[in-house]
């Protein structure tokens, strides 16, 4: 663990990743203190000051109702990160358990579980989330539900493949011979060997959750105004290009920076932990 961290800090690209992710997390956690206009995260209007290009004190400019874009981006980061944490902490255990059971038990259980997984995987991710958001009300909770429901199958597929190869290893056979229970073998013998791959995927996925969630709100199917969201900010500004470029450019770059950071770390982890899937 400490060795992994040392390598991460030693490589310039992953160091950049740690730095970017650090900025994002810091902004999200301390948004209340950093944001010059914390009240602008809600439904505030300041028409005297609307659609202004970047200038002090609105370093990213102001939006169409006069709110400070910089403050809103900080709060949007907070929502994105919460969403990522919630989605991954629900989707990962579900997917991991499905994958472990299907891979180890085999037979009919495997067939049924993996065909269900296939069904979810054969609907393009964004389309499935869109359909679910379509029938539900567009709220943050439902957004999390929609993204989670399309996320677990990827973990099921990953862990299933790992389990199938681990199952044939000597240590699993040894545990079977001494009469260890199925649950013991699955959770105490096989699972620990899948952890590096799962952690790598989670780091990379943090970025992808931000991508999918912002895509949903870009289409108007995610978090609703006045809650600040990077996707809906880009969508709102796109029709005012190229004159009011700051409305689109800063939220777009904010997404890029956050996801790029997570990808740099995930990419380095993949090489260090040798969990290339």
């Amino acid at each position, binding site marked *: 663990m400490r060795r992994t961290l040392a390598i991460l800090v030693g490589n310039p690209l992953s160091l950049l990743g740690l730095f970017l992710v650090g900025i994002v997390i810091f902004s999200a956690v301390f948004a209340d203190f950093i944001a010059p206009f914390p009240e602008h995260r809600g439904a505030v209007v300041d028409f005297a000051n609307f659609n202004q290009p970047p200038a002090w004190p609105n370093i990213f400019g102001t939006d169409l109702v006069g709110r400070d874009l910089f403050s809103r981006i900080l709060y949007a980061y907070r929502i994105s990160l919460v969403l990522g944490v919630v989605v991954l902490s629900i989707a990962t255990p579900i997917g991991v358990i499905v994958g472990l059971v299907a891979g180890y038990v085999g037979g009919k259980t495997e067939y049924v579980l993996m065909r269900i997984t296939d069904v979810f995987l054969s*609907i393009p991710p964004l389309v499935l989330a869109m359909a679910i958001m379509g029938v539900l009300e567009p709220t943050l909770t439902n957004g999390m539900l929609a993204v989670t429901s399309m996320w677990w199958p990827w973990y099921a597929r990953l862990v299933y493949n790992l389990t199938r190869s681990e199952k044939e290893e000597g240590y699993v056979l040894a545990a079977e011979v001494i009469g260890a229970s199925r649950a013991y073998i699955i959770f105490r013998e096989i699972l620990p060997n899948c952890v590096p791959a799962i952690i790598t995927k989670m780091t990379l996925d943090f970025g992808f959750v931000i991508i999918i969630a912002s895509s949903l709100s870009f289409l108007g199917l995610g978090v609703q105004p006045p809650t600040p969201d990077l996707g809906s900010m880009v*969508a709102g500004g796109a029709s005012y290009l190229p004159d009011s470029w700051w409305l689109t450019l800063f939220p777009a770059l904010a997404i890029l920076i956050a996801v790029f950071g997570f990808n740099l770390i995930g990419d380095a982890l993949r090489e260090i932990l040798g969990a290339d899937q």
Partner: protein
Amino acid sequence: MTSLVRVLLSRLLTSFIVLIGVSMLIFFIARVIPGDPARIALGPNASPEQVLVLREALRLDESIIVQYGYFIADLARGDLGISLYTNRPVTTDIAQFLPATLELVFVAGLMMIFIGLPLGILAARYRGRWIDHTVRLISLLGVSAPSFVWAVILMMTFAFILPVFPIAGRISDSYTIPVASGFLFIDTLLAGNLRAFANAGWHIILPAFALALSGIGQAARLTRANMVETYDKPYIEMARSYGFPEKRIANRYAFRPSLIPSLTIIGLDFAAMLGNAFLVEAVFAWPGLSRYGVAVILRKDLNAIVGTVLIISAAFLIVNIIVDVLIAIINPRIRHSQRPK
């Protein structure tokens, strides 16, 4: 050939089962909708009689299993029901909007193959050099933003700042092309109008590139990774000691084995692109499924939602069958295998 047929048949069967599963899943999602779908579709001003008529038409009073049975029976006749948004059969709507989306995704797929794979080959051939690092950076950046961010950035750069490409649409308004297939590339050729064909091509470059960017990166990375592994094999060393030129070694001997995993990832990326097309279309005002899809979702138009998702999933499954068959054709181990599975 027999093994090829076997691959094809087994893939068709699995895909059919999966597609049935998809139809169940999406049908169930559409029917667990909170509230009365008929009431939601008609809006608060509709009379109770109107709601009753619609409930009857949608067979909402039957059990969900019976409803699904009717749905499948209709589907078998190619009937996806009436869209409450356009008041037309869902199949007519989809037939109108799908070609533009497929055209976009197809061109993006071509870009992925013809830009992504060569970049991967170059990175592997010059690994550790600046070209390798550049390709790595491009591919990491490519997957680091949703397609709508790339679409906006590309549009700002190459349509506004440097006005090289058109800002929006599929073709300039000055051309009127009779609709035959809905695919502009085919229709312009059928009309014998080469200028219109070129114009359509000019319009598709920017949106298709925005859509393809993340896939280009992934294809390049995967190709590079597999080729680097292959470079350590003895037969490459042998080719080198024969004095074959590096270019030939890279393109013929090291690239071949990595083609199969690359094709697999291209098939998977196709799924992502079918979904991401919604985002790119929204930015470039591309008249594809996107606007229709979002509109029917916001109006809770159940038939249209189910139909759209089903068609997109079917398109994805078909592409993956094609990819599997291609792999079977390319892979000598499958092509020449005589043994039954």
